[in-house]
Structure formats: C-alpha cells, structure tokens
C-alpha cells in the first residue's frame, strides 16, 4: 500500500489560459470569476484563515461539476468545493490557490415527497430553505446549525453539521440517505438512495463529514421529519455558572430527554441581550435555554421534570415561553449570538471542543483560567446538552501578539477537552485550523489510515489539499504556512 503523494507546493504559477477558456466555454462567461477584486470575496470563511483562489466557477448541474473536475485534472489544477463559506475551521480555504467550485447556483430543491418523508436537493440549497419548503405541510429537516439561514446542504454534509436540536434528532449524517458525488478522479455516481439499509458499504456515511476532501457533493437525498405536536421552551436563570452546568448533568441523570439544552454564560448573555433584547437578565451569571418537543402529554411531564432538575441546582428563575413569539425571541438571542459578539469585538475565534456531559462544569472553569492566563476575554455559548462547548475567544488582531495568544488559548482549551475524554471538534470540523491537534486525539495508525484513504481516491491530491491531518501526514506538501494577514 504505497502512497503516491504528489508535490502540491503553492509556488505561484499563472493560471493556464487554456483552462480559463475551456471553463468559460463550458459554463459561460458569467459563471467564471477571476478578477482580483472578485476573488477577494472568496478568500475566507467564518474562521480566521485566508487564501485566495485563482478562479471561482459556478456550475449549475452535476454534469457540469463533473466536467469542471475533468478540466481541472487535465490542466493539473487543484480544486475545492464551496457552499456559503460559513465554515468555522477554514475547510473551504484554497490553501494552494487553484479552482474554487462554488455551489451557489446549484440551489434547486428538485423533489419533495412528503409521503415517503424524503426530499432531493442540489447541494447549494440553503439549509433553512429545506424546512421552509415543507413546514406548512407539517414537516421539517432536522439538522439546524445556527448558521442555517446561510449555510448550504453541501457544507452541512461536508462538515456533518449539527445544531441545537441535534441533541434529540441526530446530526446531518443521520438525515442524509444518499449523495450524488463527483470524485477527484472525475468519476460520478450516486451513493445510498431513497431507501434505507441498501446492501453494500455505507459510502454516504464515510463521505459525510469528510470535510470536502473526499468528493464534491452535487446533490443529496434527505430525510424529512414530522413536526411535533407541542414545543415548550424554558429559560432557566442562574447566579453561578457552576449551577447551570450542573443542571445539564442533573437533567441527564434524571433521564429527561429535552430536544435542546443550550447554555450562555454571563459574559455572553449580556452581549446577546444588548444586541437582541431577547429578555435575558443582565445580572445573571448563566442561563440555560431548554426545549422540549413531542406529544403534548410527554412535553408537559418533561417541563415539570426539568423544573425540578433546575430547582435542585439552585436556579434563580424558571421562565416558560408563553407563546411562539416569546419562544422565537429567546431563540433569536441564541442564534444571533455571533453577530452580538461582533458588535463588541472586532475579532473572535470560536472553538468547538466536546466533553462528556458530566465534565462541563470543570471544563468551563478551565476555560476561564486559560482566558486569564492569556489575558483574553472568553465567553461561552454552547450546545450543553451534548457537551459541545463553544468558547468564543475575543481578541484584537491589530494588537501584535493577540491573534497568536488567541490561537494558543484555543489549543490549550482543546487539549483539555481531549484530556477529559472529549474531542477537538463536535461540528465545525478540523479543517486547516486544528490539524496539528489531531495527533493528540488519534493514534498514529488512525492518522495513517485516514491519509491512505484520502490517497486512495485522490492520489494526485487535487481536492481540498492541506486539510484534516497534521502537516507531513496531510496529502500534499504545503510550503506555505497557514496564517492570517490583517
């Protein structure tokens, strides 16, 4: 099993003129961007790294995607797929330049089949649009990342995205039945299908979450779910972060199964409240946003049990949203949190570590300690129900050393998560941001197998090089240091 790793040095070479012409002939003038000022919009995602592509193309069909890949191969170009660019780990950054394949114009919901609980979409469809298309009929698409107004199904599949409600309903991989994929060698096929348990290896499962390094996804077959009869949202307010975190363990210990348990610490809830006026108390040290869904009788019982759990952990106030408007307001606060942070701090760095649910309290305390150590403010808003922490490290990149400090603080937090049996990423992906930390979480054997696997499908390392694995193990050899220029 020898590996053929090609050199993918990012030494600048001119984009081949023939490739440009052939791409224009294939897609049309208006589906190709390569002016510097246009490309600048495509050099970043929601994270902190940057690199400009040489060209961005906008195919409209799976067949065009396949032809783009064929052309890229012919001209020895590297390429990367792009959804909405909301990723938080640099997954979409073209580290070596090359071609960016944007799925923005592949935004058709091709089929909705409610009776069979399925929909077929092109991969550029925005996550929320799937639910909007079926909700009047009483259905929804379960994965609900906080970025769902912008992020695409292709990006969700690549990152195996989660969201507040994935605590109960599972993450993207639990809702993707099949994929229409173009592999780096130009082969084009369909994995899985509309039916469950098709015989054979679960290619849909292994491609989902491969962070855009294994295949370009042109379309997806998704599972739809029936809306619940009743939804109840409560806000539990605390005087200490510890009490709020303890409640999460208490809820699990009492066998209560809410569909979402989100936590905001004091720092965070004040920023959010100032920006959104969601009604969070300014003087509290933490709040929990807890949601129960299901059959009326079951929800009513659970709300009562959650109240007991919160009270056992000294919750100061327990508010039940009285109607849909109040509920939406509470969620608006949660879902617009990053925007709220942006108002106060020009730069922030979001981490995505996961810990066992019994370790949330100590992890939070450790995060605060690390913040103090580096002299940085860290606020927390996260999916507490599944132990998925999102410490948001505030910094000012214009002050020399602060970006570095923020990155070091982030690494230290994630190392701590690993040390208590957790993971460096729950939903944002490893990307180019956490590559080096992979060695702390996984054995050499594991990393070698991931590398071999990438190599198996992409021996020339054309698709999204320089991601997921530590440099050196990563496919290709990156000569350019990842980093940010401001």
């Amino acid at each position, binding site marked *: *099993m020898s590996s053929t790793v090609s050199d993918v040095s990012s030494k600048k070479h001119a984009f081949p003129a023939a490739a440009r012409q052939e791409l224009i002939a294939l897609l049309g003038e208006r589906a190709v961007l390569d002016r510097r000022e246009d490309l600048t919009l495509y050099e970043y995602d929601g994270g902190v790294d940057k690199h400009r592509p040489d060209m961005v193309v906008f195919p409209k069909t799976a067949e065009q995607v396949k032809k783009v890949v064929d052309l890229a191969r012919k001209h020895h170009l590297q390429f990367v797929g792009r959804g909405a660019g909301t990723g938080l780990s640099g997954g979409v950054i073209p580290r070596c330049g090359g071609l960016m394949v944007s799925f923005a114009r592949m935004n058709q919901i091709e089929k909705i089949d409610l*009776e*069979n*609980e*399925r929909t077929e979409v092109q991969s550029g469809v925005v996550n929320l649009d799937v639910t909007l298309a079926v909700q009047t009929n*009483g259905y929804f698409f379960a994965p609900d990342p906080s970025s769902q107004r912008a992020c695409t199904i292709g990006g969700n599949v690549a*990152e195996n995205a989660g969201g507040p409600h*994935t605590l109960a309903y*599972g993450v993207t*991989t*639990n809702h993707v039945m099949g994929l229409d994929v173009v592999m780096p060698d130009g*082969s084009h*096929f*369909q*994995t899985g*299908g509309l*039916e469950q*348990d*098709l*015989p*054979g*290896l*679960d*290619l849909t*499962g*292994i491609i989902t979450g*491969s962070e855009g390094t294994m295949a370009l996804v042109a379309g997806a077959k998704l599972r739809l779910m029936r*809306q*619940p*009869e009743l939804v109840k949202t409560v806000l539990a307010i605390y005087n200490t972060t510890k009490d709020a975190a303890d409640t999460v363990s208490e809820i*699990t210990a009492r*066998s209560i199964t809410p569909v979402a348990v989100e936590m905001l610490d004091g720092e965070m809830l004040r920023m959010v409240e100032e920006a959104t006026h969601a009604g969070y108390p300014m003087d509290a040290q933490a709040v929990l946003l807890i949601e129960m869904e299901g*059959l009326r*009788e079951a929800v009513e*019982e659970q709300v009562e049990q959650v109240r007991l759990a919160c009270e056992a952990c000294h919750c100061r106030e327990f508010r039940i949203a009285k109607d849909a408007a109040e509920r939406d307001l509470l969620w608006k606060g949660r879902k617009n949190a990053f925007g709220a942070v942006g108002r106060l701090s020009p730069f922030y760095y979001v981490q995505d570590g*996961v*810990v*066992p*649910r*019994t370790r949330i309290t100590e992890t939070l305390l450790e995060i605060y300690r690390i913040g103090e150590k580096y002299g940085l403010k860290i606020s927390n808003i996260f999916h507490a129900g599944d*132990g998925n922490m999102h410490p948001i490290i505030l910094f000012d990149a214009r002050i020399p050393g602060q970006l570095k400090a923020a990155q070091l603080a982030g690494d230290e937090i994630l190392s701590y998560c690993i040390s208590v*049996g*957790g*993971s460096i*990423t*729950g*939903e944002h*992906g*490893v990307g180019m941001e*956490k590559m080096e930390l992979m060695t702390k*979480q*996984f*054995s050499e054997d*594991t990393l*070698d*197998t*991931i590398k071999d*696997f990438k190599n*198996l499908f992409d021996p020339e390392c054309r698709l999204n090089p320089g991601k*997921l694995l530590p440099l050196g193990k990563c496919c290709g050899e990156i000569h350019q240091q990842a980093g940010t220029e401001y």
Partner: protein
Amino acid sequence: MKVESPASPAQLAEFMRDCQNANQRIELAGARSKARMGGPIADPDVRIETKQLNHVLAYDPRDLTISVEAGMRYSDLTALLKEKKQFLPIEPPFSNEATIGGILATHSSGHRRRLFGTVRDLVIGLEFATLQGRTVQSGGMVVKNVAGLDFAKLLTGSFGTLAAITKVNFKLTPAPMGSKTFLYQNASASEVFAKRNLILKSVLQPASIDVLNPGAAATLGLPARFSILVEALGSEKVLNRYQSELAGFQAFDNDIWNGIREFTPNWLKGHPNGHVLKLSTQLMQMEKVITALPENYAAIGRAGNGILYVHTPAAATIPTGVKGAIEFSPAQRQPAEQLWPTPGNDLPLMQKIKHYFDPNSLLNPGRLYGRI
C-alpha cells in the same frame, strides 16, 4: 482450520497481520449465530473469534455512554444497562447469542428503529484492527464528534470484509417508563396500510410500526390476516393518549415483540432450506411489494422505515424492481447475482475500498452478499 481467540484487541491486530503475512484466509467470528447470513463463508485457514473480548471498558451512567469490547454479548450488555434503568434500543435478532461486533458488522436492527434508528445512529465511536496490524479509531466517547473520518459508518454493515471491529462505544437512552402495544388486523392490506398512513401523518411518535402479512401473523399465533402492530413508549398518560388516538386498534400483549425480534432465527430453524429476503422499499411502495408475495411467505415490514423481511420456505429471488438482498440462505448459497442482484453504480468504489483494506482478499471474502 486453526481457531484463534485473542485475549485483547492488540493481540487480535497481531493475528490479523500474521495472517496477512502468511497469506491465510480468515473467518471473523463473534457467536456465529448468523452463519447463514450474507454470502458463503469461504473455506478459511484461520477463524479469529472475538469471544474473549467481552469486557466493559467504560461506563458512567450519568454520561449516558458506554464502551465495550466487540465480543460482548448483546444480552449481557442489556442486562447491565437494565440495572441502571438505561437501554440500547437495537432489538436485534439472535439477541441471546449475538455479539456487539456481529450486530454492527451485519447492521442488524430491530422494530424500534422508527424512533431510535439503528446501530448506525447509536454508535459514537469504535476501534478496529486491520490486516496491516493497525488499530484504527473512529469517533470517541462523546455524543457529538466530527474529528477524523467516520470509519464507524464504513464498518457498519461491512460483514467483516474490511477489518475486525474490536471496541464499540454507544450513546444510551434512559429506559422508558412504560410501553404499550396495539394491534389492528384486516383481511385487506390496504386497510392496514391506511392505518399506517394515518399514524405517519399524525403527531404520534411510536417506537415501532410493523406490518405483518397473513403468513407472518399466523406464524406468530395471530389470526392469519394483514396486521399492524404499534408500540408506544412513555408514561401512563402518554400511553393513554395513544390508546385514544389509535381508533380501531386493540391493546395487545407486549411479548409479541419477542416473537417479532426472533422471527427470522425461528424461521430458519424450522426451514432448513428457507431464505430471508431483506427488501429496501420506500414507505409508499411497501404495500404493493408485500401484497405481491406468495401466500406461503411470511413477511414483516418495518412500516415506518420501509424495510421488509420476507421469509420463504425454499429458494426465492428478489422481486424485480425492488432493491435488496437475500439476507439468509442455506449453506449452499446462490450466486452473487441473486444474493445481491442490483448493486448501484457505486459498487466499483466499494471494491476499491475492499482492495485497500484487503488487497489479497483474505478477510471474510464474499461475505458481503458474494460481491465483496
């Protein structure tokens, strides 16, 4: 044939590497409860058994997660969880003998999958040993985790053709407060599926929705008619709500689910030449497929998922136009073209993956329905 029973995952990885080096064919075995499943077991040089790998590696009930070795029996695991009022809603056939590794490798599932999914959805991490002697990790011990590739998905349903699963981590569910079963029977399949459709469109969230054809109903001791069985979980109040919503249904003995779970094993015992077809249908397609079956077939459909198990007394083929595989057959298997008649255009990709893990075709060759 040599039989090896490694005492640790590390030793298992060594055996795998040794076999590869000696070019020996391997049969991977848990409890061997499913010997009639999948493709024929090729004449192996070595059988590697997981029965000594039967330890619980980590279990903190407050975290609702558990880590076990792959040779652990499902029945031992469920007994342990029961003590802590937790459970793993897999409900696989052969539930007394089956090992966790075997359940994963064959993607065995049960009636509660409408609500809880299958092992594909419940596994949060695993480890496997490759023929190179590597020990590879996927996921971990937390319920949400996207670091690394999701090899667990690849191994689930791979019939041990890629590598040997050595450890498995699950997320757990609190045991339900109570459960209740409801039955409706009618000579007409369309009446039964109409009931099913009402449930699918309703706000009810039953754990199980199974449809039986008259043959399966009779085998279970019910009147020989089309039947729909629904299982609800929850408090008394919740169960009463189901009772009032499920008009025309009668409350029924919960024990029927044991018969459903073990239907296939019992059928195979009684029918040495029997076959079991596993058909993957769309929800709305199932009625047509089940009604087209001969009378002497016994069919159980996961009517909330589209999976249809067809039990036949003798050789049978997958109906045309339907996707699926012959899941169980006698030792004398049919050729691959019949075991798995309609692979998709992604079969070459699967073969490529097989070739990567097992270039000399030593590991459970052909077990994945004769094709891999």
